[in-house]
């Protein structure tokens, strides 16, 4: 081995602990980057493969009832490659031994013509058409037959409820209790994500595939369909029409065809709920996978900079000697580059391993929520190349100035000891504050002498605080969302919705149900809000003038009054459509015949979830030309009587479904609590790596630079404690300054990330609980104290004798 390489290894061995902390910071950044991006890559890969193999449709339409013959007309539209019609109905499901309200989506499967689009993959059991015993379930079962229906069930619901082939459950099919017998567990590209109302509650919502004819018979839909899925011709097939233009054209034409049959506006994949949730998660993770690693790598660059600057500083005489011996500048520069390259390289490798492992774990978590046949975690070579490129960049960026300094150093100059550091009174002293204790004075002057390094050191610790704040912010955000949605907005306990809007007098009937304290009506209709060429599908809500059980609440938790007759829009919705208060908005309603409403925008409200249009119930009914109608009711209940009430509603044919707030919260909690805990633990661990990296390296460097000074003080009779206080005081001061800055930075980071994450579904409230700040501060303080303790041990080993003999 060449002597210079031997020096490289020895230098590394001497500074191994510092090198390790830096490598770990690099590893955290690279690992975080690869974890997030490889997991979403793999998720997208699995999705794309699933979509392609099971022929996921491009456009989705729903109608009240359209004749089968219409399918051929849809298929003949230009730009449409294939059409699949089906029947879907939402029903109430009862499971033996559970009073939880559960909703089921029944989807008809035509056994003679297996679906060409949105095909199923069987995960367990058998398909509907295999091994069916004669008479057990037949295509020509009479309408209203009470025979048990064979069903395939969505894998997510089956897992959440522990259902296996052979299990049975009850479904309220058009007013009749029918038994569903599970024969198989299935996966569908249209229901990769299937939770109740877009929440991660997989226990409250299941998808069931049953015989189409039986379903048609039960709902009087023989020879008709109420759902259509369209597959578009591949891009380029239509004279190079861009896919999104083609999609818009098809949607417009399909809408026109379906309108007479009570069609709502068809949607593209973008608005298909399962696809939208999956895409939302991918976008979210891409933001997190980019923002956080950038911080880590910036800190790593700073650490490399201080450590290498210091190393070059201490080795200036060696560098001079090497130059005097005839080593070229490039050789010496390369020598130091190799040193930082090795440190960063180890960090990169550790980061790869970390990304490989954590990415697989994250994908495993996804697999519990997003149901697809095959998940393979892989880190794309491109991602590795990007990670390596970024690592190289920060390594060079962080160390270039220090390494160029070796080139500029002339041998003769380097042989002379460096001049003593130039100090001056601190700003506080120049401003006339002379009462500073000597120790504090030394600390302050040291910091002022190297303002950039001090500032970066403070910034590094602040970054650690900010990252812990960020890691725990999601818990706060979710708590806040839950608080807004389920305590401030929805104050009722159970929501019932009806098969059809009925006269509000039904409220009297509901009020007599067991345990009911109060009843409040609401109406909801599907609509498309239009402004010029911009359109958005939404559910138009009608609420009472002074709602008590189901209120409109903004992100800050204040209830919004419905004073006028016009619309109150979610601010994001108004912004998306370019609507302002006072504008007139056009609403297209499908409900049987195509109707249009023109309503003024009364107010905008910043809502945390969804894109909503809300108005007063009576105004809505008047605008629709209806009497006093409601499509749902929110009930407030006596404590402990929910099960009783839910049982009673099962006997009411007009109740299409029930939603229990308590059950949904319970079901959601298990999933979110765990996921948030994992996320916050991982980020807290990463932040600890940063805090230790910054504080430990700063302390080691301070010790190296001032060891001579500290040894002199020891000789003068200063105790170890006093000397430690001088050294660690500077770190303590830096850390103390960093804590409030870190909290501010955390707040900014959270606001920025929340803004980046803002989408149609969520506007994360960027509100941070005091406990999150407290936790972040404590975590970083603990890391700083641990680092200080290690350095404190080195102080006790300071060699006083050498201080007498050597000149710094």
């Amino acid at each position, binding site marked *: 081995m060449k002597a210079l390489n031997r020096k490289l290894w020895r230098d590394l061995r001497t500074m191994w602990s510092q090198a390790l902390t830096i490598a770990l910071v690099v590893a955290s950044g690279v690992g975080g980057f690869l974890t997030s991006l490889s997991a979403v890559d793999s998720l997208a890969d699995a999705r794309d493969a699933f979509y392609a193999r099971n022929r996921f449709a491009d456009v989705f339409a729903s109608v009240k009832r359209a004749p089968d013959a219409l399918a051929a007309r849809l298929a003949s539209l230009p730009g449409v490659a294939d059409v699949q019609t089906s029947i879907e109905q939402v029903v109430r499901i009862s499971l033996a031994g559970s009073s939880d309200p559960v909703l089921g989506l029944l989807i008809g499967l035509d056994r003679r013509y297996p679906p060409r689009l949105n095909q199923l993959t069987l995960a367990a059991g058998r398909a509907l058409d295999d091994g069916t015993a004669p008479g057990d379930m037949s295509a020509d079962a009479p309408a209203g037959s009470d025979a048990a229906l064979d069903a395939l069930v969505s894998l997510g619901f089956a897992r959440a409820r522990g259902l296996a082939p052979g299990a049975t459950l009850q479904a309220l099919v058009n007013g009749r209790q029918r038994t569903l017998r599970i024969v198989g567990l299935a996966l569908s590209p249209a229901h990769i994500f299937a939770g109740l109302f877009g929440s991660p509650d997989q226990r409250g919502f299941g998808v069931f595939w049953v015989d189409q004819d039986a379903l048609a018979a039960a709902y009087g839909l023989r020879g008709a369909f109420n759902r259509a899925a369209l597959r578009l011709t591949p891009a380029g097939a239509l004279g190079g029409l861009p896919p999104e233009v083609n999609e818009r054209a098809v949607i417009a034409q399909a809408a026109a065809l379906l309108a007479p049959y009570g069609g709502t506006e068809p949607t593209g994949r973008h608005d298909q709920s399962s696809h939208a949730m999956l895409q939302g998660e991918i976008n979210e993770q891409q933001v997190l996978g980019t923002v956080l690693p950038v911080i880590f790598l910036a800190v790593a660059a700073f650490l490399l900079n201080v450590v290498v600057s210091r190393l070059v500083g201490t080795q200036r005489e060696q560098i001079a000697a090497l130059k005097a011996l005839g080593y070229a500048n490039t050789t010496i520069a390369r020598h130091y580059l190799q040193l930082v390259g090795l440190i960063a390289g180890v960090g990169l490798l550790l980061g790869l391993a970390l990304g490989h492992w954590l990415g697989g774990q994250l994908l495993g978590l996804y697999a519990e929520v997003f149901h697809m046949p095959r998940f393979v975690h892989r880190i794309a070579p491109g991602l590795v190349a990007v990670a390596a490129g970024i690592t190289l960049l920060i390594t060079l960026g962080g160390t270039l100035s220090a390494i160029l300094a070796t080139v500029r150093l002339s041998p003769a100059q380097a042989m002379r000891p460096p001049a003593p550091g130039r100090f001056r009174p601190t700003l506080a002293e120049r401003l006339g504050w002379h009462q500073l204790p000597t120790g504090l004075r030394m600390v302050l002057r040291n910091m002022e002498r190297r303002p950039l390094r001090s500032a970066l050191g403070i910034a590094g610790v602040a970054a650690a605080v900010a990252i812990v704040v960020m890691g725990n912010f999601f818990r706060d955000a979710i708590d806040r969302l839950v608080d807004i949605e389920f305590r401030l907005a929805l104050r009722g306990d159970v929501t019932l919705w009806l098969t059809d809007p009925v006269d509000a007098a039904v409220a009297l009937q509901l009020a007599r149900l067991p345990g009911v304290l109060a009843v409040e009506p609401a109406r909801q209709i599907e609509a498309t809000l239009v402004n010029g060429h911009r359109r958005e599908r939404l559910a138009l809500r009608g609420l009472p003038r002074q709602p008590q059980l189901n209120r409109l609440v903004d992100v800050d938790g204040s209830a919004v009054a419905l004073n006028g007759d016009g619309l109150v829009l979610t601010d994001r919705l108004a912004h998306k459509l370019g609507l302002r208060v006072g504008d007139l908005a056009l609403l297209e309603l499908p409900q049987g015949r195509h109707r249009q409403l023109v309503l003024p925008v009364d107010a905008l409200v910043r809502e945390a979830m969804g894109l909503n249009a809300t108005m007063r119930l009576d105004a809505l009914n008047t605008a629709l030309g209806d009497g006093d109608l409601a499509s749902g009711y929110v009930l407030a209940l006596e404590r402990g009587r929910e099960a009783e009430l839910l049982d009673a509603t099962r006997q009411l044919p007009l109740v299409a479904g029930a939603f229990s707030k308590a059950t949904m919260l319970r079901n959601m909690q298990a999933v979110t609590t765990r996921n948030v805990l994992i996320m916050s633990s991982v980020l807290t661990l990463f932040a600890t790596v940063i805090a230790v990296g910054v504080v430990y390296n700063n302390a080691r460097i301070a010790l190296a630079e001032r060891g001579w000074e500290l040894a002199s003080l020891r*000789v003068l009779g200063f105790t170890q404690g006093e000397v430690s206080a001088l050294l660690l005081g500077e770190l303590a001061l830096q850390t103390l300054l960093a804590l409030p800055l870190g909290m501010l930075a955390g707040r900014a980071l959270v606001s920025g990330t929340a803004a980046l994450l803002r989408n149609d579904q969520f506007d994360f409230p960027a509100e941070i609980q005091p406990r999150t700040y407290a936790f972040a501060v404590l975590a970083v303080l603990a890391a700083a104290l641990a680092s200080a303790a290690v350095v404190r041990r080195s102080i006790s080993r300071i060699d006083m004798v050498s201080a007498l003999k050597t000149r710094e």
Partner: protein
Amino acid sequence: MRTMSSPAVSAAPSVFCARGLSKTYQSGDVAVAALREVDLDVRSGEFLVLLGPSGSGKSTLLNILGGLETASAGSLTHRAPDGSITDLTQADDAALTSYRRRHVGFVFQFYNLIPSLTALENVALVTDIADAPMPAADALARVGLAPRCDHFPSQLSGGEQQRVAIARAIVKRPQLLLCDEPTGALDFATGLLVLETIADINRSLGTTALVITHNAAIARMADRVVVLGDGRIQRVQTNTAKCAPAELSW
């Protein structure tokens, strides 16, 4: 000017009493004896020069006397001004720290000033932790640096820095002033000024002064000269008439 060695010194009680003092360093697998069975008494108020080439053991001896390290064998007792006697070979780190803090003033070859503190503040560093110090400004005045008291080390010449170091060493009115090659990094004229300062402190405050040097010329200003070589005391020479620093030349 020649002054007689003061008879008071020879009659004074011992500050140090070393018997069989040895120090062995372990360097890898080899034990290196830096000091071998040294017997030495240092009397109160004495100006003692430890002379010897490098590797002779003079620094080791000074370090042990100054409480920077402990001997491997032998005994070393120190008598404080209040008459209390401590065996420095048995003292732990805390006891040695306290010993240095209360009784010893150090002057180093490279001054060892704190670069972030002004001259006055460097001296005040010691008054902050000493029992009955003189005012820091007085100590600086004594070494002739009152006008430079607000200067930082980087704004002072080498000689001025060394005089600040002396002021810092004497400000606590130490019993002992230990100087390790105090003129080693200085030119002749500046070195002379520093030696005059040390001699003045020894004379006027009665501080026992031990000066290490390899410069034999300096030995002429001492009461006694202890010549070391190979870890042992080669000879002790008493100057019946010591020189003033101004008469020295090298």
